[in-house]
């Protein structure tokens, strides 16, 4: 297949680029090595819309963060993705850290961020009663927010597909050749896809993709961040996203509500060997517990429902790499998209689109383009009378499958069939929250396996947790 643009990587960067390109009269193909989109850093990060006070003025990060916040809020609304402008606070515990807050305030002003202010510890505790008594001052960032990063990615890919973009899953790029036809991209399976332009949005593997394309000029440094997600019963302990003072390692351990009402604590920042180092460790989780208690001493970490590790891909310059290759024309890199990459994703997509245009891609807007997407889970927000009417039209919505998160069969069927359809149990979980609650899929898991088997037309023993190799069953009893 020949496309105008081939995008490698269906993380949030590739997803937003695909969506943005779907406005134009172009054929676009999005390649993803996993069985679903948002499988790298886009599914395991803090889910924060950063205020923009942190990046070094003049960097791409600063520029795109400032522009990106409003763009992201708008995209979240269009795509019906859970997003809350809850504001954030950076906490100082000492005079030295208070000085750091002042520096951040100045930096925020340089970055054109409005609304920032420094509050005393007591003022902060008035609006955030569980904040530690040791906090002396905070930087209050009213425009910051929280968002569900994987739902954003899924929705952006779905919207792009609704507007004509092709998604190829399980396409692990093994070779890239530049020919007269364009970039011929070959998968491990032998499949090929050709594109006139190639955009490298491969997240933690962007350096490898760059090398395959003959432009391996950078090396990514993977750093693992471990998180713990606590029960909704703990959700009330923080209204704002509460940061400690940032260090060279990252923005520090945060305590934050999630858009779904849980409490998220983490991440650590531990250098790891590869992008695939996604184990949680006793040391890492101990650090998460210790440092989050410093911010909010009353957090009950025994209320953990799951813990996970995300791997961020940074580069030594500390800034994003967003540029056309200097040696391979038509190859665009979006690499080293670590924090605040999620906040910047729409702004990055704009920037990449401009880079493609500069490289010669012709951008003709389609006559009609619909940038909106319906929420799979809209049902659960309805009033009882609306639900009743809806169930009478769609009986599958009456049958609750996941009792902990109250997810109906109708929502699960929709998750399987709405672009980009869920193909495995984790995919259903990320789209509907089924299995994300207290029982972690203990009750609903077998039923979701049956639904996937039936709807995808595959035998039960081919149903996977997360793509080939992660089969749930080994076969019928025999």
């Amino acid at each position: 297949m020949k496309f105008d643009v081939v995008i490698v990587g269906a993380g949030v960067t590739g997803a937003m680029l695909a969506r943005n390109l779907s406005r134009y009269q172009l054929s676009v193909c999005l390649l993803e090595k996993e069985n679903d989109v948002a499988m790298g850093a886009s599914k395991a990060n803090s889910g924060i819309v950063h205020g923009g006070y942190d990046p070094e003025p003049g960097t791409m990060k600063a520029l795109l963060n400032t522009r990106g916040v409003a763009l992201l809020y708008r995209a979240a609304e269009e795509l019906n993705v859970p997003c809350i402008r809850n504001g954030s606070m950076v906490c100082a515990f000492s005079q030295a850290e208070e000085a750091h807050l002042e520096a951040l305030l100045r930096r925020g002003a340089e970055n054109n961020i409005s609304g920032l202010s420094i509050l005393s510890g007591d003022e902060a505790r008035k609006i955030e009663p569980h904040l530690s008594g040791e906090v002396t001052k905070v930087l209050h960032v009213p425009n910051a927010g929280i968002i569900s990063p994987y739902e954003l990615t899924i929705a952006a890919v779905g919207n792009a597909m609704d507007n004509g973009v092709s998604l190829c899953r399980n396409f692990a790029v093994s070779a890239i050749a530049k020919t007269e036809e364009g970039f011929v991209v070959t998968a491990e399976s032998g499949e090929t896809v050709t594109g006139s332009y190639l955009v490298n949005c491969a997240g933690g593997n962007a350096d490898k993709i760059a090398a395959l394309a003959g432009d391996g000029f950078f090396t990514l440094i993977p750093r693992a961040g471990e998180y713990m997600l606590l029960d909704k019963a703990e959700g009330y302990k923080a209204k704002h996203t509460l940061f400690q003072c940032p260090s060279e390692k990252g923005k520090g351990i945060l305590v934050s509500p999630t858009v779904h009402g849980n409490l998220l604590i983490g991440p650590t920042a531990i250098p790891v060997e590869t992008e695939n180092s996604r184990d949680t460790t006793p040391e890492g989780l101990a650090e998460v517990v210790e440092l989050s208690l410093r911010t909010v001493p009353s957090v009950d970490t025994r209320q953990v429902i799951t813990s996970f590790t995300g791997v961020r891909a940074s580069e030594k310059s500390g800034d994003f790499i967003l540029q056309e290759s200097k040696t391979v024309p038509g190859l665009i890199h979006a690499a080293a998209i670590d924090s605040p990459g999620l906040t910047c994703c729409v702004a990055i997509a704009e920037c990449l689109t401009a880079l493609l245009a500069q490289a010669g891609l012709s951008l003709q807007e389609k006559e009609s383009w619909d940038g909106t997407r319906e929420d799979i889970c809209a049902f659960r927000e309805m009033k009882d009378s609306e639900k009743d009417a809806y169930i009478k039209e769609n009986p599958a919505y009456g049958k609750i499958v996941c009792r902990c998160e109250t997810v109906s069969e109708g929502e699960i069927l929709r998750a399987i069939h709405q672009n980009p359809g869920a193909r495995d149990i984790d995919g259903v979980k990320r789209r509907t929250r089924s299995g994300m609650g207290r029982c972690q899929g203990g009750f609903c898991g077998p039923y979701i396996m049956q639904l996937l088997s039936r709807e995808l037309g595959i035998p039960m023993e081919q149903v996977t947790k997360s793509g080939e190799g992660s089969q749930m069953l080994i076969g019928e009893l025999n």
Partner: protein
Amino acid sequence: MTNHDIVVVGGGPAGMAAAVAAYDAGCTDVVILEREPSIGGILMQCIHNGFGLHKLGQELTGPEYAAVYAKEVAKRGIKVYTETTVTKVTEEKEITAQNREGILKIKAKAVILAMGCRERSRGALNICGSRPAGVYSAGTAQKLVNCFGYQVGKKAVILGSGDIGLIMARRMSLEGAKVEAVCEVMPYSGGLTRNIVQCLEDFGIPLYLSTTVVRIHGEKRLEGVTIAQVDEKRQPVEGTQRYIPCDTLLLSVGLIPENELTRLAGIPIDPITNGAIVDENCQTAVPGIFACGNVLQVHDLVDYVSEEAERAGRAAACLTTDTQSIALETKAGYGVRYVIPQVIRSREAGAELFLRVTAPFGKVRFVVTDGEKVLHTAKRLKAAPGEMEKLTLKPEMLKAATGPITVSLEVMA
């Protein structure tokens, strides 16, 4: 909004027994709301035998035990809504439920909560490592094997020596899988002794006490686990780590009463049992709302679930509105983890006390005291946390009592 005298939430062993008992006590307008396609609850996947010896005088399998009660429910014409999930119960006893026909709103005179319990998951244990397929709670694996007919793995390690884990060790072995080990973090087993014998010893499966799984390995499907011995504080002992290759890890690490609806209704919960605080009739602090079975306290024997539920059903039928007066409170003393009921409202009828001990003991004596005064004692040859104890207090013991009634344990020589 429709009206019913009694709504039973859940059609497992507790819900069925409560509904039947309420009917027989004279309240014929009883309905059961059940989320599964048929009543029977978790018994339907417990295909092993050992149920009913105490209550029915015969040894049955789980589905047979359920069938006995399902027949009684049917015989009385008690209406059962299946595939109907209750999403809300209010203090005013208004119930919201949904099924494929729509939203149901029912106003009840009494509500009996019988939702059962759920298994503690991997997340709650915070075991480190990767997140591959092949890590199941034991009950989930039981459902896949016994109801759907699939093999979940070929080589398994089981964490936790709760009864479901032990039963699944035997079940997987019988179906051709190799169970490498059962690891128990405590220095004693959480399951019934008979299950250690017939599920592990019969199949040569080792039980490692004071041992836990410290790491999960494998990217896509489980490849192995690292186990380690633990010290008195349940922390891994350095140097005792051992890798066991396996494709399946079953977790049988505790059951938690499923009380989300209870909390939503504003009913106070006992932090030790994780179930509602109840009186001798299983009535919660909200008048007309009762709780019984594993949603109240996790039982080891279904026979006691049925008995408890019958008490709740009878009381719901002859609804007493008294939930305020407290005649006597109960307390757990030395060696006792909890006592149910937490309050006794009437001295007239006597009371049955249910409790669990804090650790395994040899020969013991339970002593029930009212202040300084000993009301009752009961000897046991042994006592273990995995085996619920029942003490019966006769009306004459309570007549002059002032409370609190304390149950403690004395170790006997």
